């Protein structure tokens, strides 16, 4: 057991949260980060879906890594991812229909999320199943972290509320503010602002951690 959670293995989870974050450092999976972060609820659901698909795809590919001919590995990876995405899509439709409607095509588009292919190529093809699983969870969480930060920012300033799964929409900005002349920032709801928020996160992260700055 202690070997399973050795320092090296734990790094697989903690690194993607910070200095090896899939969105802010590897710059993968930006498109979905812009598309599903208008409200917090779909962002969380999307993050969980991606984490689940990523972790299991990593494990499956890692198990198959010695049998996949390298010339057709991409198509094998795609089949695995697509199968998992269909599963996730069906589960969402069954148990969280409203959110799945909000996410619309973006659940299906997890297949094209660069984080998945990126991690399969970069990690799962060369590592054992357990570290691959941890890597999947870690990168999924790193993705989730950024998604939630962006979504919270966008929803508070764009809609004045926070929508959590199971709790529904909660108004954060009191009516008195609106009566005094405050209004929601419409730009926050548009995709460009998500890009700018991601950009600001990248900026802050690199200002704090100078090693990340490209020469």
């Amino acid at each position, binding site marked *: 057991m202690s070997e399973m959670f050795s320092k090296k293995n734990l790094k697989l989870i903690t690194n993607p949260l910070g200095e090896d974050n899939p969105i802010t450092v590897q710059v993968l999976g930006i498109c979905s980060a812009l598309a599903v972060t208008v409200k917090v609820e779909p962002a969380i659901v999307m993050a969980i879906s991606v984490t689940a698909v990523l972790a299991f795809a990593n494990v499956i590919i890692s198990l198959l890594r010695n049998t996949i001919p390298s010339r057709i590995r991409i198509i094998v990876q795609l089949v695995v991812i697509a199968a998992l995405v269909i599963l996730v899509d069906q589960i969402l439709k069954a148990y969280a229909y409203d959110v799945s409607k909000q996410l619309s095509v973006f659940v299906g588009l997890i297949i094209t999320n660069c984080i998945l292919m990126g991690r399969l190529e970069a990690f799962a093809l060369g590592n054992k199943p357990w570290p691959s699983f941890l890597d999947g969870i870690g990168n999924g969480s790193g993705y989730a972290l950024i998604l939630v930060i962006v979504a919270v920012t966008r929803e508070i300033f764009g809609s004045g509320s926070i929508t959590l799964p199971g709790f529904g929409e909660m108004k954060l900005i009191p009516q008195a503010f609106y009566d005094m*002349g*405050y*209004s929601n*920032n*419409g*730009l*926050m709801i*548009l995709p*460009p602002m998500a890009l*700018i928020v991601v*950009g600001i996160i990248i*900026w802050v992260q690199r200002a704090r951690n100078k090693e990340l700055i490209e020469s």
Partner: protein
Amino acid sequence: MKAIRKILDNIKPHVQKGGKLHKFHSFYDAVETLFFVPDHVTTKGAHIRDAIDLKRNMFMVVIALIPALLFGMWNVGYQHYMATGQEGTLIEYFLHGLLKVLPIIIVSYVVGLGIEIVFAQMRGHEVNEGYFVTGMLIPLIVPVDTPLWMVAVAVVFAVIIGKEVFGGTGMNIFNPALVARAFLFFAYPSQMSGDKIWVNGLTEGQGIVDGFSGATPMAQLTAGASQNDLILGFKNHAMSAYDMFMGWIPGSIGETSTLAIILGGAFLLYTGVASWRVMLSVFAGGMIMGLIFNAFAVNAYMEIPAYYHLVMGGFAFGAVFMATDPVTASQTNTGKIIYGLLIGIVAVLIRVLNPAYPEGMMLAILFMNTFAPLIDYYVVGANIKKRLKRAKA
């Protein structure tokens, strides 16, 4: 002046290296160089000495903005008095406008310079004068009833995202004042478009005379009016091109009077601060596109005389003060002409063909800002090719 010098000299030891207030040295520098010619001299090599520096340069633009600013203040009062059905004197109009416009200017400068100073401190740079012009441009391109906090938020966004992320003054891709305007336009559309926001007091609706309309000429044209249906305030007041040229029409604070803008533009050209190539080609581009629409007109908006486009809305203001921004415009002479022409063409294109954006000037300039380096790249490339060919022949 002597008193100021004395105060500054008293503070100086504290802000120099080793002093207690060394943190604030860049702020001190900014204040000192504002009042006095800097005494820094270069020690090596040959240098051309000239009285003009960034600060003086920027100041010329601010001076050029004064006619538009003063006219804008008068017009704010005039429109308000007209909407409430009162008669006033020139002074009354002006004072009303002054009281409405001054807070916007103050907010713009305090917030903008505040951020500039913070960034200069953090980076150990001197405070830059880049915000002088931007801080004056922003109040002139917003509707008079824009809430002050929105102006502040837009300024924060423009200075940080429009300028500081790229490295500060001189490094920005987009014109910061237009970034502020675009931010307001997309973030708070209800306060930035429509028929009521352009005239002070119209949104509250108190004491407004029945039948008064604050619609800008472009809003009316977008709504389907033809050239002869344009009205100024009331149904029986026709709006002519002369009205638009002189500027007593609803609109953003400083953009309505083409005459005042031309006065400022002439000053800029006389002092050599702005490029005549850009200015001229923007007007030419707008005219060309207007004529093309005239030739293929299928609706009333396309039929309006091409010169209407040059006097309506923010076209002249954009051409004279925004497109000519030396940082975001093309740098090569040929590039400037292409850049200007395309701004004029795209602005009129957006105006006439896209009903969602009655004013196309802001979007056209921001759009072409993106392409300015590309234009330069090809102009320089073409020049190299031409000269290589000549060398071979």
